[in-house]
């Protein structure tokens, strides 16, 4: 029962993300736009490129959708509205999101096209850059909560939200989450101008619909993870807990989508240099500072 309710809320959230993305990129707020474009996509013919690796071509978008749904299964929307409350929830979120990489590599290699393949390998290069920047802030958050379960992490923020307690970790995790969801400015895998659409280029019809749906579930799952780890989850004064979760998640998604309009696309070499030379020492400093704070403040 809770599973169905969470999936329903997730579907509503994905629809809102689609409306937000259309509003931000085109400037017009049309509530029925995602429904129309979904129907159009499902009705179009699906071209299959010449000599694809059929196994990877078909399976890639499905793995993306499955991986992101598994990652959304450990997000708590309210104290009892969570699909599965694993004891190692934060780590499981990371493990499920690692399969986004597998999905994009399959989707890149499958269609037997140069642009798609380059897009897939570029996602691997970007993940090498920000993989540590996702795991280390989660470590600092789990240090404060003294547990890896996501509900414990939210409960531990009852006094002070983690965004105030560990602002450095929040910035690093936010940037790395934008990179994992290949949103602009980290959207080299599906670069619209440079790679002619990259990984999305060779897909059309039903498979493109599944790919885009998987991507939106990925964006909303990463926003939900940011809210769970840093913004206090369901905590708030007057409304119901799940309503607070929904408001916070949509706000974080809007910020993630808005930043892309104002920052130029970052080259992969620069991203790797910045993340490894600046980001990882900052993440280690974050862990060190959280450790000191935990010992000093009783």
């Amino acid at each position: 029962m809770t599973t169905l309710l969470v999936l329903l809320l997730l579907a509503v959230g994905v629809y809102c993300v689609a409306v937000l993305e259309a509003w931000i990129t085109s400037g017009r707020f049309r509530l029925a736009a995602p429904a129309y474009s979904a129907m159009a996509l499902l009705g179009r013919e699906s071209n299959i490129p010449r000599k694809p690796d059929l196994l990877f071509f078909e399976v890639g978008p499905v793995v993306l959708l499955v991986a992101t749904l598994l990652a959304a299964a450990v997000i708590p929307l309210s104290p009892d509205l969570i699909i599965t409350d694993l004891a190692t929830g934060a780590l499981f979120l990371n493990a499920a999101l690692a399969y986004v990489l597998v999905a994009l590599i399959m989707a890149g290699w499958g269609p037997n096209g140069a642009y798609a393949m380059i897009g897939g390998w570029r996602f691997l290069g970007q993940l090498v850059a920000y993989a540590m920047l996702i795991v280390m802030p989660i470590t600092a958050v789990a240090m404060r909560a003294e547990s890896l379960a996501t509900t414990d992490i939210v409960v531990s923020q009852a006094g002070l939200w983690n965004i105030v307690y560990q602002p450095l970790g929040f910035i690093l995790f936010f940037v790395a989450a934008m990179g994992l969801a290949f949103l602009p400015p980290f959207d080299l895998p599906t670069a619209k101008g440079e790679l002619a659409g990259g990984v999305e280029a060779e897909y059309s019809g039903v498979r493109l619909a599944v790919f885009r749906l998987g991507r939106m579930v990925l964006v909303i799952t990463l926003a939900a993870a940011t809210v769970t780890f840093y913004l206090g989850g369901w905590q708030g004064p007057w409304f119901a807990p799940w309503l607070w979760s929904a408001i916070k998640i949509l706000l974080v998604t809007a910020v993630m989508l808005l930043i892309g309009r104002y920052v130029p696309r970052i080259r992969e070499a620069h991203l790797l240099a910045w993340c490894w030379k600046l980001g990882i020492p900052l993440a280690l400093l974050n862990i060190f500072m959280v450790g000191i704070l935990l010992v000093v403040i009783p």
Partner: protein
Amino acid sequence: MITGQSIFIGFFGVAAVWFGIVVFRTFSMVRSAIALLFSQTALGAMFLTMQAEFLGVLQIMMMATEMSIMAFFMVMFMMDPGGMGKMEMTHQKRLSLIVGLVSFVGAVAIAIFIDWGPVATTVADTAQQTKALGLELLGRSMLVFEMAGVTILTAMIAATSVAIQPLPLSAIKHKKDRV
């Protein structure tokens, strides 16, 4: 006694071995790497079935990234990554088959014919397991943990220094003139 746990262990075990065999039977190199990835994922699922939750999740997470990087290296270094040419890339096939079979039969004989003693039926709750593992890591096995950390650092420095490209002589001369 056939319990749910034994059915799942059997299913994931067969999946792991089947994907492992596919690694060496297929002609496409990227399929080989992704098959190894799914073999390790089935292994991680077996860990989860045996209620070692932290280890299972860790295995699944690490192997996804590692095997994807291995797929990338295969595309870089191998002659026919798409498998369209159907090349035969093995040597001493009979010898390795015999050695593989002998080791398999020996290990299975040891597994079946030794009396392993009383089998424990209850395991601690997963939250308690994670906490106990953490206490063990930083308590009794602190020396092993520290050595693992130093080994990781050494391996990182070694791998980077072996793989980094040396500067060509013209660039070094140019740098010295600028100083």
